[in-house]
C-alpha cells in the first residue's frame, strides 16, 4: 500500500517516521513517499530557534497540552542517547518575563524546575516585575530534519521534490493514504479559512556568552510580539515579531530595527554581537491544530487523508504528540481496510 506524506518540515518528517516505525513490520507492502516543494534548510521549521515551549495559555485545549507533554517526555528520553547531538537536542534553562503577575502555565509541571523569579533575578531585567525560570529543551531543526531524513531514507522511504497541487496527484487507485502536513500553505490543497500566516522575522547573531533563553511577554501585543533571545548550539536567535495575516516572506527593515533595539535593550552586551543572518517565515496559525481524518472524493478518485497542520509557533513543541496521534488515525484506517487485523488463531 502507498502512503504519501506531503510536507517535509518537522511535522511531515516526524509523522512519516512515526507511522513507518509503527506499521512497517505489520504491513510489509507499505511504501511511503514524501513530497514537498521545500526541504531543509528552506522549511518554516528551519527558521525556528527550536525551543520547546507552548503558548502561555492552552485556552482549555487539553488535547494540545497532552501532545506537548508527550513530545517533551519523548525528547527528554532521548537526551542521554548517542543520537542527541545529531538530532540537535539539548537542555537549556531560561527566563520568561512579564510586566505583571500571571497565572502559571499549563506546562509548568512538564518542564524541569519551574519556579518564579526572585527579586534579585528581576534586577537583570528592568521593566519586568514578574517572571518564571525553568529548564526546557532545544531541538534545532537544522540538525533534526536531516536526522529524520536519514532515518527515513534508511527505511527505504523515497523523497520527491515537487509542489503537490492536489490530493489526487499523489495517490493512485486502491487503498492509499495521504498525510497532509503542508503547514501554512495547506489552504492551497483544500481551502481552510481558519489557517492564517503568523509572520515572524528573526536575526541570527554570534553571542556565545548567552547561555539562557529570555522570552518577554506583553499581554497587549500578543504572543511573539515581544522580544525574545534564544541561544542555539552555534547562533543566538533574536526575535519578537508576529503579524497575523501577513504572507510576506521578505525581511523587513522596520522589523529588523524593532527586533534589534528591543533585544539590545534587554541584553546590552548584544550590541557587540555579530549579525550572521536574517530570516522571515510564516507560522501556520490556526485556532487549534487540524489533526483528523477525511475521505476525499473527486470523480472516480477516493483517498483517506490524515490532516496534520496548523501548529502555529509551537510545531516543534507539539510535533511528536501529533505524529503519534496521526499514527493512531493511520492504524484505524488499516484496521478498517483489514490490513492490520490481529493475527488469527490457527485451527
Amino acid at each position, binding site marked *: 500500500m502507498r502512503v504519501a506524506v506531503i510536507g517535509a518540515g518537522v511535522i511531515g518528517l516526524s509523522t512519516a517516521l512515526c507511522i513507518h516505525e509503527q506499521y512497517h513490520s505489520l504491513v510489509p507492502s507499505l511504501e511511503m513517499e514524501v513530497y514537498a516543494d521545500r526541504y531543509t534548510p528552506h522549511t518554516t521549521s528551519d527558521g525556528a530557534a527550536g525551543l520547546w515551549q507552548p503558548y502561555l495559555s492552552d485556552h482549555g485545549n487539553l488535547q494540545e497540552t497532552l501532545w506537548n507533554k508527550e513530545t517533551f517526555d519523548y525528547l527528554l528520553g532521548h537526551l542521554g542517547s548517542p543520537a542527541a*547531538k545529531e538530532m540537535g537536542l539539548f537542555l537549556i*534553562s531560561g527566563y520568561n518575563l512579564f510586566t505583571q503577575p500571571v497565572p502559571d502555565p499549563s506546562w509548568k509541571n512538564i518542564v*524541569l*524546575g519551574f*519556579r518564579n523569579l*526572585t527579586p534579585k533575578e528581576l534586577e537583570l531585567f528592568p521593566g519586568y516585575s514578574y517572571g518564571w525560570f525553568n529548564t526546557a529543551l532545544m531541538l534545532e531543526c537544522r540538525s533534526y530534519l536531516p536526522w529524520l531524513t536519514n532515518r527515513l531514507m534508511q527505511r527505504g522511504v523515497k523523497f520527491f521534490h515537487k509542489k503537490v497541487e492536489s490530493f489526487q496527484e499523489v495517490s493512485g487507485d486502491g487503498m492509499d493514504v495521504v498525510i497532509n502536513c503542508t503547514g501554512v500553505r495547506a489552504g492551497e490543497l483544500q481551502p481552510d479559512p481558519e489557517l492564517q500566516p503568523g509572520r515572524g522575522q528573526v536575526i541570527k547573531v554570534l553571542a*556565545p*556568552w548567552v*547561555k539562557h533563553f529570555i522570552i518577554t511577554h506583553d499581554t497587549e501585543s500578543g504572543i511573539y510580539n515581544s522580544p525574545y533571545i534564544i541561544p542555539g548550539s552555534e547562533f543566538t536567535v533574536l526575535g519578537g515579531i508576529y503579524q497575523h495575516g501577513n504572507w510576506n516572506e521578505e525581511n523587513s527593515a522596520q522589523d529588523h530595527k524593532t527586533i534589534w533595539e528591543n533585544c539590545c535593550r534587554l541584553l*546590552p552586551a548584544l550590541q557587540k554581537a555579530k549579525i550572521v543572518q536574517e530570516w522571515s517565515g510564516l507560522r501556520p496559525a490556526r485556532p487549534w491544530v487540524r489533526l483528523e481524518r477525511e475521505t476525499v472524493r473527486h470523480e472516480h478518485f477516493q483517498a483517506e487523508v490524515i490532516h496534520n497542520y496548523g501548529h502555529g509557533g509551537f510545531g516543534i513543541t507539539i510535533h511528536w504528540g501529533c505524529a503519534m496521534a496521526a499514527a493512531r488515525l493511520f492504524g484505524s484506517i488499516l484496521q478498517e481496510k483489514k490490513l492490520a487485523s490481529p493475527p488469527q488463531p490457527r485451527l
Partner: protein
Amino acid sequence: MAAPKVAVVGAGVIGLSTALCIAETCPSCSVMVLSDQFSPNTTSDIAAGMLIPHTYPGTPMHVQKQWFKETFTYLFAISNSAEASEAGIHLVSGWQVFKNTPKEELPFWSDVVLGFRPMSEAELQKFPQHRFGQAFTTLKCDCPPYLLWLEKRLKATGVQMYTRKVADLWELHSEYNIVVNCAGIGAHQLVGDEKLFPVRGQVLKVHAPWVKNFIRDGDGLTYIYPGIHRVTLGGTREKESWSLSPDPGATKGIFDRCCSLEPSLRGAQDIKVKVGLRPSRQCVRLQREVLSQGGVKLPVVHNYGHGAGGFSVHRGTAKEAARLVGECIAALQGSSLRAKL
C-alpha cells in the same frame, strides 16, 4: 611623600584585580604590575572561573561570605552591562549533585547566588547515581577575556605592566614604597611560605557548544562548566604535586566521569588538556608585613593562597588588600612626618 609607588607582583586574577582596586582607591598612587607570566599563561587562565566558593578552614565564615558577596555583586553588574562579552562575564545555570546527601544542605553562599533551591525529583532523574542536588544560577569569568579586560582597565587608569621575574621581594625596595605580593603559587619560592602547597588540577577544554548548563559533583572532583567558546571538564585534586605535564590517565578519567554526568559530551571535539597548580593554604594570606634590612623598611601586603576559590573571592580580597595598602601609605606618611620633626 610624593605619589607612593606600589609594585604588585603577580598578574593572575588576584594580581590584576588587586592592582585595579589600589588604583581605584588611591588615585595618587603610581601602581605597577610585575610578573613573569601574563594571560594566557597564568594559573587563572586554566581555571574555569566559576563563582562557586571554596571553603577556607582558617578564615572566619562571615569574612568568606563577605568576600564572595562583594565579588558576586561586582561581576553581576558587569554581566548586566554592554561590556559583559568583552569582560568574559556571563551567567550560567546548573546543578550541583551529590551521591550522598551532604551534611550541610545549605552552603553559606546559597543566598548570594541566584535562585538557589533543591533539585526536583524530575531533575534528579537525569543523574541516576546521585540522590540529592541543588539548582542555582551563578556567574562565570572566562579567561583570558576577563584578565585581558582587567589589563585594559589598568592601562586606562595609568597602571603599567612589566614582564619581570622577581626572585626576592626585597629587590624591589629601592624602586618602590610598597610591594603587594599576589604571586599565587609562586609565593612558595618567593617568600618561602611552607604553608602554601600546590593542589594540581588537570582540566579538559572542549568544543561542545550545545552544553548550556553547568553540572558539578558535590565532591568537587567532577565538573562541567560551559564557557563562552569552550566547556571546561574537570578535574583532579592532587595535593603536593608540582607537575605541569598533562597526565593521559587523568585525561581519560576526567572525560569518562564527565560523560557519565552528561553523555552528550562523547561528541565533544578538539579536546585540549591543561594543568594548573591551585595555590592552596588553610587560609588566604591577606595581611601586612614589614621587611627590613639595615634600617631600611619595605612594607608588604600579602594577598595569596586562594587555592580553588580565587575567582569566587577575588574582588573581596582585592579590596581588602587595597585597604591594607592604604594603611601602609598612612603609616609611611606618619613616619615621614615624624622624621621631619
